[in-house]
């Protein structure tokens, strides 16, 4: 005799599975901005760039002094790590202090959701860079190589500021 497990899926199975999908949508929905984060990140048409993966996320200063909330995020690529500290300013904007390791004088670009234009700064010889007065929202970092260097640029995933 055939076990019920070996029978093909039927309409009643589909009813159960559809209802189950509905339950998970209620109990554990994806973050509201997940689609936007993904479409923003993949819209950067650069399949050759080296992808830095998010490797660590730390929260600090939460609680009583919430105006000084900061977050530290580390992205790791094979060629370089990018670490940023995001601090909320009292005026509702944020300041980003970043470091490249190994340190190098390279152009660092902060890509923001349109219509906000991208910002570009130069990291100093210690690998430090700063973006100040940045609006909240989705962002992505690009570390450019010098024009005479064939190495691919490094891009991070999109993250929320």
């Amino acid at each position, binding site marked *: 005799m055939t076990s*019920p497990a070996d029978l093909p899926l039927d309409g009643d199975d589909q009813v159960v599975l559809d209802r*189950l999908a509905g339950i998970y949508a209620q*109990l554990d929905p994806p973050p509201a901005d997940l689609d936007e984060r993904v479409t923003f990140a993949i819209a950067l048409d650069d399949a050759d760039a080296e992808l830095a993966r998010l490797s660590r996320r730390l929260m600090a200063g939460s609680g009583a002094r919430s105006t000084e909330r900061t977050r530290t995020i580390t992205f790791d690529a094979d060629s370089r790590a990018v670490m940023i500290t995001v601090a909320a300013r009292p005026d509702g904007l944020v300041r980003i202090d970043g470091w490249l390791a190994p340190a190098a004088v390279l152009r660092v670009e902060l890509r923001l959701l349109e219509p906000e234009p991208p910002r570009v700064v130069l990291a100093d010889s210690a690998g430090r860079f700063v973006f100040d007065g940045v609006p909240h929202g989705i962002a992505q970092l690009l570390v450019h190589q010098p024009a005479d260097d064939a190495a691919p640029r490094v891009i991070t995933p999109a993250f929320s500021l």
Partner: protein
Amino acid sequence: MAAVALGSGEAGTGSAAADRSVTDRAARVGACLERARSGETSALGEIVRELNPLLWHVARGEGLAAEEAADVVQTTWLELVRRLHDIRSPQALTSWLVTATRREAWRVRELSRRKDPDGAARLAAVPDPAPGPGEQLLADEQDQVLWQHVQRLPERCRKLLRVVAHVSRPDYAAVAQALGMPIGSIGPTRGRCLAKLREMLRADPGWSR
């Protein structure tokens, strides 16, 4: 073309209209892939919105916290953009994404374990959304009945059904294979987990089907 064959292979549950929508979807996804391959990655937007819930539940099913799961889903799409030329069909796309999401989720879970050994227990404890209070959050009585039974299934089954529930019909066979589920001669079979759940529901007078 594979989608047409798959659609009719599931004729037991489908109608001509359903088969047509299966074909339409395959054509639509195929066209988006084609545009993306020629450099227009924004063409993937529609597929992203359609498949993100599935990938989210794959990552959450592997025991990742919400933020980590969201990162894993995004990394998977960024990887896809680098592999577009290897993806031959809409079905191959979904199973590639599911496989890549699982692999990335394992990688991230392994990393968090190494960095934060105490966190491992915490991670292992969150494969299910709000276990327990879930029932109170569900307004619909049939949902409550179903959820009670789902929670009685072994963890392996809950993880599998959570993913399978988010797979759209034309992708079943390909995704089932990626998840190591058995496939019968005319398509995916119900499998032990769903068979067990159906048996529990049949014995419950509170379940009306």
